[in-house]
């Protein structure tokens, strides 16, 4: 019976599993439709456990449950919805961890709801960082803990960042104190294919699975440019050049196409021996069927154009270019292709491919219709202040006369990163039906003085700057130098 329901494309199968409980009924229907053609395959014995991805499509399932929550109404604040609206004296109604309503002062508050007073403060969606190495390059960055780069081969698509994550990294706590509610943890960029990234809910957890976002698609970290060619060229192996990089991507996708075709054929007709499962090709096949999103570290505009051609050659999509220093040079192209550009504002000059950075990058990328401008961190300190990095980008745009509103710019760290991770249907904006990931800021988040006062994830209070009971500490932080000492007579929050 299980065999039958898996006869469709692996795309459909994986999408069903990943989409979570809401989509289960649809999956069952699709499985039923696919059942009709090949009734004779029913006779086949299932493969031994673990030899068919379809048998265990989600081997490290999320155990995320969310923290205790109550229904509430956040009232009186200036609300940036993330989807372009600014509402003065706004009301955000949260029911069962979901946004139930967002509106002006007249929005009714249901009886029995806790009222959170946000007068004089600002309310935004939870901030989303699409490029983090928290947990895989944790603090402390000592040699036994540096688990972010499987720099042993230019293609390590088989590794998964989630298997390197140390949930006790204190950086998760400091990120949350900066408003980060969702983050994608990626492998490093030494390799052409660095491995799978994972999207996390930023709640404290003893296990990685307890943070894993249910239903979020996996990302595949790919890297253009200097890093792979320097690392492998330095070992006198391929790739040593930009052209070696491209040959490496193409060879890998040729193999992935072949692998996928063999599995598809075997699933279709059941003839002969099944293909041998290969974790590396399985991830690349996931890119080809659209279940794994390409998260492509790529600095230079000319390299982005080449990567787009490779995607067309093999028939897959690029979801985002990360560290897209030169995205502003091809902003209309990226908008036409529907590719997000994930950018810094202030980082530049640390290597040749980072030379042409401009602070107005996000503003220029944002300008064309259909664009997706994202501010990201790649850094445990910067992730605590993505709002300020967005403010600097906004200022750079305004300096050249671009009329960009704050309610627009907030999307660079909320709704657009959600698009960049394929989770915009679940979070990234304060819109009815979405997860109630909310930050209440002490002041306008585009001010350097703004602090995240309260951070809610799925409607649950996960951080409160004024209440030590909601300032979680990792195991590592207990009993360390300075532990338990008030550092200054100010509201401390995290560290």
């Amino acid at each position, binding site marked *: 019976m299980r065999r039958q329901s898996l006869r469709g494309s692996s795309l459909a199968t994986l999408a069903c599993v990943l989409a979570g409980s809401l989509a289960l009924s649809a999956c069952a229907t699709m499985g039923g439709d696919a059942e009709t053609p090949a009734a004779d395959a029913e006779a086949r014995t299932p493969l031994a456990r673990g030899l068919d991805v379809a048998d265990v499509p989600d081997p490290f399932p999320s155990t995320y449950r969310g923290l205790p929550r109550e229904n509430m109404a956040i009232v009186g604040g200036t609300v940036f919805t993330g989807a372009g609206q600014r509402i003065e004296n706004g009301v955000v109604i949260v029911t069962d961890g979901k946004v139930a309503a967002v509106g002006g002062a007249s929005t009714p508050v249901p009886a029995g709801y806790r009222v959170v007073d946000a007068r004089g403060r600002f309310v935004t969606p939870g901030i989303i960082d699409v490029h983090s190495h928290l947990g895989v390059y944790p603090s*402390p*960055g000592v040699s036994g803990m540096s688990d972010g780069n499987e*720099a042993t081969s230019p293609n390590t698509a088989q590794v998964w960042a989630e298997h390197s994550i140390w949930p006790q990294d204190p950086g998760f706590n400091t990120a949350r104190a900066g408003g980060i509610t969702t983050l994608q943890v990626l492998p490093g960029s*030494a390799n052409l294919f660095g491995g799978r990234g994972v999207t996390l809910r930023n709640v404290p957890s003893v296990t990685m699975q307890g943070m894993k976002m249910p239903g979020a698609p996996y990302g595949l970290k790919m890297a253009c440019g200097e890093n792979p060619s320097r690392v492998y060229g330095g070992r006198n192996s391929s790739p040593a050049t930009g052209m070696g990089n491209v040959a490496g991507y193409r060879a890998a996708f040729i193999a992935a196409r072949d692998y996928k075709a063999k599995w598809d054929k075997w699933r279709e007709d059941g003839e002969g021996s099944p293909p041998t499962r290969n974790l590396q090709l399985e991830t690349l096949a996931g890119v080809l069927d659209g279940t794994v999103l390409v998260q492509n570290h790529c600095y230079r505009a000319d390299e982005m154009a080449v990567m787009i051609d490779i995607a067309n050659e093999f028939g897959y999509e690029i979801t985002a270019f990360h560290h897209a220093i030169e995205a502003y040079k091809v902003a209309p192209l990226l908008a036409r292709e529907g590719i997000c550009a994930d950018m810094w504002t202030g980082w530049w000059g640390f*290597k040749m491919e980072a030379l042409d950075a401009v602070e107005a990058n996000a503003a220029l990328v944002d300008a064309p219709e259909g664009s997706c401008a994202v501010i990201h961190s790649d850094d445990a300190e910067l992730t605590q202040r993505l709002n300020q990095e967005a403010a600097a980008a906004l200022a750079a745009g305004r300096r050249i006369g671009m009329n960009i509103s704050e309610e627009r710019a907030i999307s660079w760290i909320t709704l657009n990163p959600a698009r960049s991770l394929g989770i915009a249907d679940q979070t990234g904006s304060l819109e009815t039906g979405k997860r109630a990931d909310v930050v209440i800021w002490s002041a306008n988040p585009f001010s350097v003085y703004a602090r995240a006062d309260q951070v809610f994830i799925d409607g649950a209070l996960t951080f409160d700057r004024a209440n030590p009971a909601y300032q979680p500490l990792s195991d590592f932080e207990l009993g360390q130098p300075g532990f338990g000492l008030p550092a200054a007579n*100010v509201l401390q929050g995290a560290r």
Partner: protein
Amino acid sequence: MRLKSLILGAVCAVALTSPAFAQSLTAITGGRVLTGTSVIENGTVVIQNGRVVSVGTGAAPAGARIIDARGKVVSPGFVAVDSGLGGSEISSVNGSDDLSNGANTISASFDVSYGLDPWSFTLPVARLGGITRAIVVPTHAGGGGGSGGHAHDDSDFAGVGHGGLQSPGLFAGQAAIIHLAAGTDILVKPRVAMIAPFGEAGAGIAGGARGAQFTQFKETLAEVRLFARNRAAYDRAGLRDLSLSRADLEALIPVANGTLPLIVTVRRAADIQQVLRLAREEGVKIILDGAEEAWLVADQIAAANVPVLLNPISNLPGSLETRAARMQNAAVLDSAGVVIAIKGNDGSHRVRETRYNAGNAVSHGLPYDAAIEAITVNPAKIFGMAGQFGELRAGAAADVVIWSGDPLEPLSNAETIFIGGAEQAPTSRQFLLRDRYASGGEGALPPAYTR
């Protein structure tokens, strides 16, 4: 339409690119003036011949060029400490970094001032962040950073090696002061401080253990003093063998006699205590740099009258020597009476973020006035230049920045910048790139035809 206004903005930028040198009498009126030590509403700042003539609330002198700063904020240019400006162009490109030297015969004697490039494209970028003066410090070629963690973007993944490294000495070399005005000479003063890493990095240089470095340091100073007392004997080879080169011995004499400050990069509170003790025992004048755990021993630092260069946003235990790192470090040190200077986020490229770091210190308890002092008068004072720059007061260098708003806010821009009285063109290589592509870059002629 957005794109049209973009092009207009670009045209305006071009119109402003020829620098107007304001050696003539100039008055900046009506702004909120941050002098570095006080605030004057509706103030008037008068400059002439490269210097500040007066700061107050009076009318502009007759015949002066008037710059209307109503609704704006006027501040001294900021002073970057622990910078590599002009000494490093592209961090990973070998040959463009003149901040570290691996030869063991040129350690303390390494003088960064000879490697400074007034044409560096890092200077206009920092200037647009309001930086007008900088302390350029050498970095130690060995021993590693000691801060641990993941280098952003794995750029350092394979280790960008420094060629010719021979077991280097304890010292990184000597710092220089520069100004950031466009021109052919940026050097203000060479050899203003000696640099030495302590803690994990210093221990690594000495052989692995912290205690070894203290022994080596004391032995080194003993040799320097022996050399200083017996130059003639040394020159005729009549002195016992010394472990340092003659150049290094010579360079360390002012450190040994307490006249040249030693910038000590140190992070752990325990190491700070030991360094304070070492300085007391040896009569060395020190400046603490990094000092992530300094707040744990703030009173001891204050009692020793030792200033601290710090980055207030370093709050993670990046290594085992920064386990007590906190955002409140700056606030605690300031309230204990320690003179602090706030750093940028790297040496060369992200120095412009110094003002944001100061703002974040404010949001974590540092009084606003103290944050301004920490990027203006304090760095000048720490490096012996009090009253000469970093402050709007009569007689100081006319380093003046007019801001669209609060300079610590990312939403504010440095609109007009004077350095030594010379008005600086508000542009950079980055602005030229930005303007070239501001209209989308898909016109009939390739962007290469746009200047």
